[in-house]
């Protein structure tokens, strides 16, 4: 290579340059993505308006009506202590979405900062950061989350920290690659020639142009975060009773499936599936929309 600073446009840059109106046009041509968006929007509305929608207090128990099958009074039946499962699922959306978005947001900020710095300052410093990130990645995500949650103790906040940790590597890698590609553009060189100090080249010039792939990934991650959160709560390392959380609710009913009270586990389980599916449909769809090879 005679000219080490390559010219031309990389796929990452194409993703960064897709404009707004074009995006909505492509979205309308992607009904599956739109469906995912609607599902997630409904879940968010459900979480926001849970107090208005829930027919019962999600924390109220009544031993007299324990383990009743779905009926008109109790849409999804009642649990072991006579709690209304429908109301708890509505409130559970608050818990699970808050954990998912919280964990993704924390991971995004930390991961992007690490990746941006590692991409801009290649060499020893950047390599050191990436080796630490890869250390996190060497563990299966769930095992890592399990270890962190186990070490910190079960709580809402610790669950967010544990899941955030497992999500940091993917953002760090994405951001690093994105910065590396943008760093070789002429506008990056022009920014230096204009007298920008390095931190300003990175954060004012390169970072805003490197967020495209991050944006797509961020629509995919909450689904996995919900799955991990539910999984950890299921084995008792996440949110604790009496908080309504879907994974915890599945765990509560798991021993009852054999004795015929299927509704206790089934409905929260269904909502986990719906939520994960919704986020995945959005993420996959956006990946297609921004795929330069498809257009």
């Amino acid at each position, binding site marked *: 290579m005679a000219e080490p600073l390559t*010219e031309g446009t990389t796929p990452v840059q194409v993703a960064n340059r897709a404009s707004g109106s074009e995006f909505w046009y492509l979205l309308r041509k992607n009904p599956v993505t739109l469906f995912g968006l609607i599902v997630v929007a409904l879940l968010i509305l459900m979480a926001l308006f849970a107090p208005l929608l829930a027919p019962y207090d999600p924390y109220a128990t009544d031993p007299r009506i324990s383990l009743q099958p779905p009926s008109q009074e109790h849409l999804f039946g009642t649990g072991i202590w006579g709690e209304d499962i429908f109301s708890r699922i509505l409130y559970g959306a608050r818990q699970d979405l808050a954990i998912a978005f919280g964990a993704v947001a924390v991971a995004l900020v930390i991961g992007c900062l690490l990746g941006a710095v590692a991409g801009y300052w290649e060499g020893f410093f950047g390599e050191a950061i990436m080796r630490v990130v890869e250390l996190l990645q060497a563990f299966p995500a769930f095992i890592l989350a399990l270890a962190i949650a186990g070490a910190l103790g079960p709580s809402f906040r610790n669950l967010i920290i544990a899941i955030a940790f497992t999500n940091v590597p993917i953002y760090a890698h994405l951001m690093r690659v994105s910065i590396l590609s943008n760093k070789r553009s002429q506008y990056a060189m022009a920014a230096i020639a204009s*007298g920008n100090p390095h931190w300003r080249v990175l954060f004012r010039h390169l970072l805003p142009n490197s967020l495209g792939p991050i944006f797509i990934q961020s629509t995919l991650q909450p689904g996995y975060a919900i799955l991990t959160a539910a999984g950890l709560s299921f084995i008792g390392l996440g949110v604790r009773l009496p908080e309504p959380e879907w994974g915890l609710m599945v765990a509560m009913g798991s021993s009852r499936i054999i004795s015929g009270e299927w509704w206790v586990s089934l409905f929260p389980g269904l909502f986990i599936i719906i939520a994960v599916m919704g986020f995945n449909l959005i993420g996959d769809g956006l990946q297609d929309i921004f795929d330069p090879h498809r257009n």
Partner: protein
Amino acid sequence: MSNVLEIRGLTKHYPVGGAFARSLLHAADDVSLSIAPGETVGLVGESGSGKSTVGRCILRLEEPTSGEILLNGESVVAATSSRLRVMRANMQMVFQDPYDSLNPRIKVGELVAEPLWLSGIMSRKEADRKVAEVFDLVHLPTDTPLRYAHQLSGGQQQRVGIARALATNPDLVVLDEPTSALDVSVQAQIINLLEEIRQRLSPAYLFISHDLSVVSNLSDRVAVMYLGQIVEVGPTDTIFELPGHPYTRGLISAAPVEHPAQQKERLTLLGEPTSPVDPKPGCRLASRCPFVEPKCREGELPLQEITPGHSVRCRRYVEEHVDGVWDPEPTR
């Protein structure tokens, strides 16, 4: 009068190959060149000759391997990063690809304001006001500063690039193939604009190009580069009328003539450029030169002055020319 730019022995090597087979790509080897205030020097060569590397090293957008670069007598190579930011107000660059050189997410007005306030010449507010004046200089409409690069045509984008480079009224502007990405009609406009600005602000230009005709119109002097070395440098007239180095002769004879009735002798170089990785000693053109002799492949080949200001890096020319005229028979 002291020179705006003084390059002495600039060398830039890139390591290539794996950990066990270390090789060096010689992008620039012992390049020396000076530019007087207000002077335009053309730097020509084919792609891969290292001319852009030289341009980037001058502005320290790349770290030179060795050599000295003086801007108004002050070392660019030794400058601290904070001092360098101040010095950048006096040395600017227009890039080759007008679209890629403008940040797609920042309004072009802000991009043009950056060199003004980042170098500490004026406050950010003053810079924003000054921007209108600079856009007027490059003949762009008054609403242009509020636009993004993708909302402008290629020619307008390059005018923005020129506005950014000239905002601080620098002593030296490196023009890195500023027209090669543009349509022919737009190229002429940009060249005219650069000429007009030279008359108004009299910056020194280092005009990097592979296009001899563009360079000949604008330059006071021309330096020809081949595989990382300057092979010939001299006043534009001398280079075009009495070129010494076979490579320069080849370049000139390859340029299209202005009139179909005009005839000229064609000097064809043989084969492809050789690799700039670990070049062999002796003349780097030896394997392609029609006039090559065994002595061309031996030892270091210095750039030797023929007449004041005209230097050639060719052993046979230096030894055999008579008052600059050398008409050799092809040796193969």
